[in-house]
């Protein structure tokens, strides 16, 4: 018999007063996979994460984590989760090392075990040289790595990451992705939210696209691109405005006019560019690229992910 998924949600709803943050979503996360919630700010990703972390009770619907009920068995479930929150809550007045040992004690680890684990994890997130230092002088990327180390202190079965790389510079993001990829290879189940499509593509085996509290699409990044976009996209910029989009009718499979550029979805980008020139149009710039989840999101919602 197949194992029950680690996270199962059916018709899950979260309301705050009259505002519905999560509007009846169905999700299931299998052991060992990296599962993503992709969507713009306000899509309901963080509210969903807080319900899965067992800190926010669902308003309606069914939710089971590790085969248990988050409201009744919250303590038991939280003991087996690792949570890396979006709003950092490291103890600024404790050292880097003490942040880990203190947190480890919350999970009932012995003092010796807490110290051993803290040492190991600081090696893993490449902060061993900062162990005795304060938290405050750490860079954003270092703090985020420390939060991830802290989330791993109890050897969790599921690690929940809420926007793990928001606000980080590209180099810090790549280092973080690399560490998360390592975790994934070790078989840790990852559940993350992001509004970066490249992050979702890099890390997620499977993801759902959320918008306005609902799931608008689900699949692997490749599947989603295959289903909702074309293999290539041509980005064209034109001088002035005018109805260029109209003149592009029939080029490629679909044309989307954005305020600053026009996207042409095509199986063969170069052929589409050739067709544009054949029609006597002279764009200021032409970029042929592979299709991404950003294009999927745009197609599904008519909006871009990051405004």
């Amino acid at each position, binding site marked *: 018999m197949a194992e029950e998924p680690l996270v199962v949600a059916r018709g899950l709803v979260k309301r*705050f007063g009259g505002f519905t943050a999560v509007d009846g979503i169905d999700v299931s996360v299998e052991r060992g996979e990296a599962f993503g919630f992709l969507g713009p700010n306000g899509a309901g990703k963080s509210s969903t994460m*807080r319900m899965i*972390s067992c*800190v*926010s*009770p669902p308003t309606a619907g069914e939710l089971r984590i590790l085969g248990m009920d988050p409201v009744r068995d919250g*303590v*038991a479930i*939280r*003991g087996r*989760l690792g*949570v890396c*929150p979006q*709003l*950092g*809550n*490291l*103890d*600024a*007045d*404790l050292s880097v090392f*003490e942040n880990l040992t*203190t*947190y480890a*004690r*919350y*999970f*009932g680890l012995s003092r010796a075990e807490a110290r051993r684990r803290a040492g190991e994890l600081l090696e893993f997130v490449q902060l061993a040289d900062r162990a005795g230092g304060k938290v405050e002088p750490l860079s954003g990327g270092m703090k985020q790595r420390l939060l991830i180390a802290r989330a791993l202190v*109890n050897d969790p079965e599921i690690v929940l990451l809420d926007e793990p790389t928001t606000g980080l510079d590209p180099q810090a993001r790549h280092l973080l992705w690399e560490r998360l990829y390592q975790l994934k290879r070790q078989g840790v189940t990852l559940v993350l939210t992001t509004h970066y499509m490249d992050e979702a593509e890099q890390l997620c085996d499977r993801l759902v696209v959320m918008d306005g509290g609902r799931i608008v699409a689900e699949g692997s990044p490749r599947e989603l691109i295959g289903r909702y976009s074309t293999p290539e996209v041509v980005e064209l910029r034109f001088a002035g405005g005018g109805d260029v989009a109209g003149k592009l009718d029939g080029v490629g499979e679909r044309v989307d006019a954005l305020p600053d550029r026009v996207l042409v979805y095509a199986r063969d980008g170069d052929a589409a560019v050739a067709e544009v020139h054949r029609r006597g149009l002279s764009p200021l710039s032409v970029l042929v690229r592979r299709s991404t989840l950003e294009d999927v999101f745009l197609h599904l919602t008519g909006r871009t992910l990051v405004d």
Partner: protein
Amino acid sequence: MAHSTVAVLERHLTLYRRLFWASAMSSFVLPVLFLVSIGLGVGGYVGDLGGVSYLQWIVPGVMASTAFQMAIGETTYPVLGDFKWSRGYHAMRATPVRVGDMVAGQVLFMVVRVLPQTVVFLLVVVVFGGLRSWWSVVTPLVCAAVVVASALPVMGFSARIDNDGYFALLFRFVMIPMTLFSGVFFPVAQLPVVAQWLAWASPLWHGVEVCRAATLGVAPPWPVWAHVLCLVAWAVAGGWFAMRGFARRLAV
């Protein structure tokens, strides 16, 4: 579970280690200065109160009110800060630590602080001849009871506010009047009857009177069980108020 409460206690102790010397100053040296200036200085004018020197008379008051002020200090900014700035409670909330552990662990930390603080104070005071009875040895426990009875309701208050401006109101309209009119520096019998009722409602007054009975070796104004009952009532009601405040603030 008990080990989660201990884990919370340990966090506060680890944080406190950094502030130890600064806080030892305010929670120990300051009361001794108080004693010297008011006990000996003012006491020189006041003379004896019913065969007891003024210094001996205010020793238990200073002791209990120091514990009371520590409890207020530890449950105002630090509690609001762990909700609002460092978000330490949110960090705990994501672990098996329960709201009850957060509250109990933090109160336990204050008890762990007040016990040695009171013992050292007693040792110094005995040198000044400030104690008259062996019953003085129970005062650390009475001070611990004052801490629990005043810390819990203030934790509940701090869990419900979002703006630290409310603390100014708490200090001005609760803490300072309570320190002044709870029998620390003069008997509440000097006050008009209505003000005496307020003093009777204050956890500090009960703590002061039981401490005073112990250090002077006399009977307290009310039966001991009645004083203890008032402190327990504050602790129970305060505990309920604090747990509810924490649970509500963390459940979003």
